[in-house]
Structures are given as structure tokens and as C-alpha cells.
């Protein structure tokens, strides 16, 4: 009883055949080979799986693929256009906001959603926007700094 679905991922229409109750994260990673979206807890605790749905940050581990039809899905792969990185990606690289990198795609997408709504956030606003994204490496200081740096540019 698989079902055909049409998802709009990073600006392109993608057709997949999946279980009606398939989770977005599994369709992105396993069917569309978009492995930039990471999977860790599978229960909304860590933020590794964050993607944007019509510009809003959501957990793809707690989203059914079928319910995302007709909405714009943005994954970390969608932030690099024609080989040019998003200013956030560049700032994370320049400022040491990345260590092992596992949390980074989710961090950057949560930060992207914030900067789209609020181009010049305060440090407190950055910390609040990233509160659903856990990092076991950096201690967050460099991550917050990276986002504030990208916002200045």
C-alpha cells in the first residue's frame, strides 16, 4: 500500500513512492539521498533533523512526508546555490561553529529561519531560536558567534 507523493525539496519537485506513514526524515535520507539532514534521537529532543517547511524550522523526525506535499521543504543541501554557500555556512566555517558537524545542518537551518524573520537578532534571540538544537561539541559559544557574524554581513 505504498503511495505516490510529490514533494518540493530545495525548489525541485521530487516524486517518491513511500508508505503513507513514512517520516519526512526517512524519505529525505533514504529515498532522495539527501543525507545532510541528520538523524539522532527520533523524538524531537535534539534538532539534528531540523529542516525548513515553508521557511519554518520543524523536526523532520516528527513530520509525515505525506503532509509536506505542496509545501516548500528546504534542507541543508538547498542553502548552497551554484556553489556559493549561505553566509551562515561560511560564518560557521570561519568562526569554528563546527566541530564534529553532526548538529550543524540543523543549527544552520534554525538560524536561517531566525535571520529570515529577524535579520539583526540579539544574542538572547539567537540562543532562544537555537534552543531545540543540541550540540555535544562546541559549548555553543562559537555557534552563537557564527550566527551573529552572519547577521552582521
Amino acid at each position, binding site marked *: 500500500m505504498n503511495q505516490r507523493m510529490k514533494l518540493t525539496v530545495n525548489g525541485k519537485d521530487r516524486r517518491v513512492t513511500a508508505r503513507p506513514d513514512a517520516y519526512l526524515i526517512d524519505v529525505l535520507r533514504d529515498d532522495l539521498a539527501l543525507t545532510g539532514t541528520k538523524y539522532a534521537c527520533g523524538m524531537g529532543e535534539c534538532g539534528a533533523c531540523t529542516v525548513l517547511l515553508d521557511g519554518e524550522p520543524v*523536526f523532520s523526525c516528527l513530520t509525515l512526508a505525506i*503532509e509536506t506535499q505542496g509545501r516548500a521543504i528546504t534542507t541543508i543541501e538547498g542553502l548552497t546555490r551554484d556553489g556559493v554557500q549561505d553566509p551562515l555556512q561560511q560564518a560557521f566555517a570561519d568562526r569554528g561553529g563546527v566541530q564534529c558537524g553532526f548538529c550543524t545542518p540543523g543549527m544552520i537551518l534554525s538560524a536561517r529561519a531566525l535571520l529570515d524573520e529577524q535579520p539583526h537578532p540579539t544574542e538572547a534571540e539567537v540562543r532562544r531560536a537555537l534552543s531545540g538544537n543540541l550540540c555535544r561539541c562546541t559549548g555553543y559559544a562559537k555557534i552563537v558567534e557564527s550566527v551573529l557574524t552572519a547577521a552582521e554581513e
Partner: protein
Amino acid sequence: MAEVDDAFGFDEPIQPAAYLGPTSLDDALALLAEHGDEAKVLAGGQSLLVFLRQGLLAPSHLIGLRGIAELRRLEATPDGGLTVGAMVTQHTLETSPLVQARFPALADAAAVIASPPVRRQGTLGGNLCHADPTGDPPAALIALGADVEIARAGGSRRLPVEDLFRDYMDPAIEADELLVAIHVPPPAPRSGVAYLKYRLRGVDTALVGVGFGATLAEDGATCADVRIGLVGAGTTPLRATEAEAVLRGAPLTDERLAAAARAAAHECAPLSDTEASEWYRREMVEVFVRRAAQVALRRIDGGNAA
């Protein structure tokens, strides 16, 4: 998609659930009447999809409510109350100028749920139907005196929000019923309501949460009415009626409020778990009833109590 065990040992149910996406309330109620027992309603999915992923539930059908516009209404009623459709998201409540200005306790409760991505998808109706004893909105809604509206094909009923919580994660909603809306009455003159959450880390669930709503008599000092909602203080969210009785009709002095806080700590029945012991939760109920009362009283225009 292949059915693979994921690395963390959660198995998806072997039988996929069929997905139904009604676009009107009537269609949704008809589907529930047909599939009720076997089906699960899917709101924002922020609790249900965890259970499905862990194989704790295996419904035959998922009835998704996203497509039903009438469940997304958020509006002031002519008398100054508030109607919140069951599918209004926690993010919408937290950021709504109307809710922030007129019902700040509800905006505050929404703003302290989990993390921003959960609040973008999680709904008020889903939160209440999940009936988690540590959920934040229940305590605020009890203090606000809210009713919930529950519909089934051919009829609907209303009940005070505190009566929705039958037992641990067991809301008083039958399999063929849907929570449709939450109705908050207009704020009475000389009233103030607050919700405070106590937790150790930024995105945790509440160790305890207290909603406190008070209305002063015309003298500006006597308590004409009061409602206290507690979460993290039992197997369900609860209304602290004994603490309310200490205050109703009495002057709202610090001593009275302290006595009410002690009554609340006494009448609740917290659980001990890995987060906190029963004893500690009772202590914190007492502290946070006092603090929530202070915030609520400060919100009263023209009041001079406490």
C-alpha cells in the same frame, strides 16, 4: 521504502497506517465514526509521531487534521473572550498580539513548551488531548476558566478544561470524538492570570507548573474569585480547589497566599520519578503558587492587594 530497523532499535509498525486528510470538520467526524477505534487523529504530530515511531501504537488509519481550515481559527468573541481552534499552533499562540495582550498567561504557557520547532507544529488541541500531566497549557487554561468543545457526528458538548483529564494520558474524549475548540471567557474586571513553569534546563518539561487567576472585589483587596491549575503535581493536570477555598472571599494578604500555597502542596499528589521526588515537587508547588499569585496580582489593573 524498505522496512529497516533504524540504528536506535525503534521498529516502524509492520502494517503501514493509511493516511486520510479530510478538509472539513464534518468529513473528519464521519471518518471518525467509521474508523474510530482503529484510527488515530493526527494534529501536529509532536507527541503522536513519537509513539508511532517507537511502535507503542499501530493505528489502521491516521486522520490528519491539517487541511481543516475551521480548526485553525483564533479569534476574539464579541464579549471579549477568545476562541482557539484545536489546530492553532503553540507558535501562533505565543506570537499572537491578541493573546499576548489579553490572555498573557496562555501566551506564556505556549512560549515555554519544548523548543521552537516543536511549537511550530504542535497544536493546543493536540497538547490537551495528549493529556500529559506535565503539559504547560492545561494549568494556564484552568486558571483562565476555559472550556473545551468536543464534537462527534451529530452533536457537540462542552466541559470545563479540568474535567478533560480523566487519568494519566487519558483524556475524556471518546474514539469517535474530536476536540474542536478551546473557549476562554472574557477577563473579568479587576482580574489577572499568570502561568509559571519550573524546570531545571531550558527545554525540559515542567517539574511543576502553576496557573493562577484571581479576581478582586470592588474594594480592590478581597478575593472575589480564584482559580489555580497545577501540572507536574499528579497523574493529571489538576485544579487546586482546597487552595482556592482558602482565598475565596478573603483578603489577599501575603499570609493568606502562603496558607493557600501550603494547601495546594497538601492537596496535590505528585509522582516521584527520575526528575524529582514527590517531596520536592510538593515543596515547589508551594513556592510556585506564591510566585504565580504575585505575577497575577501585578497584572490586575487598579488592584492594590499584596
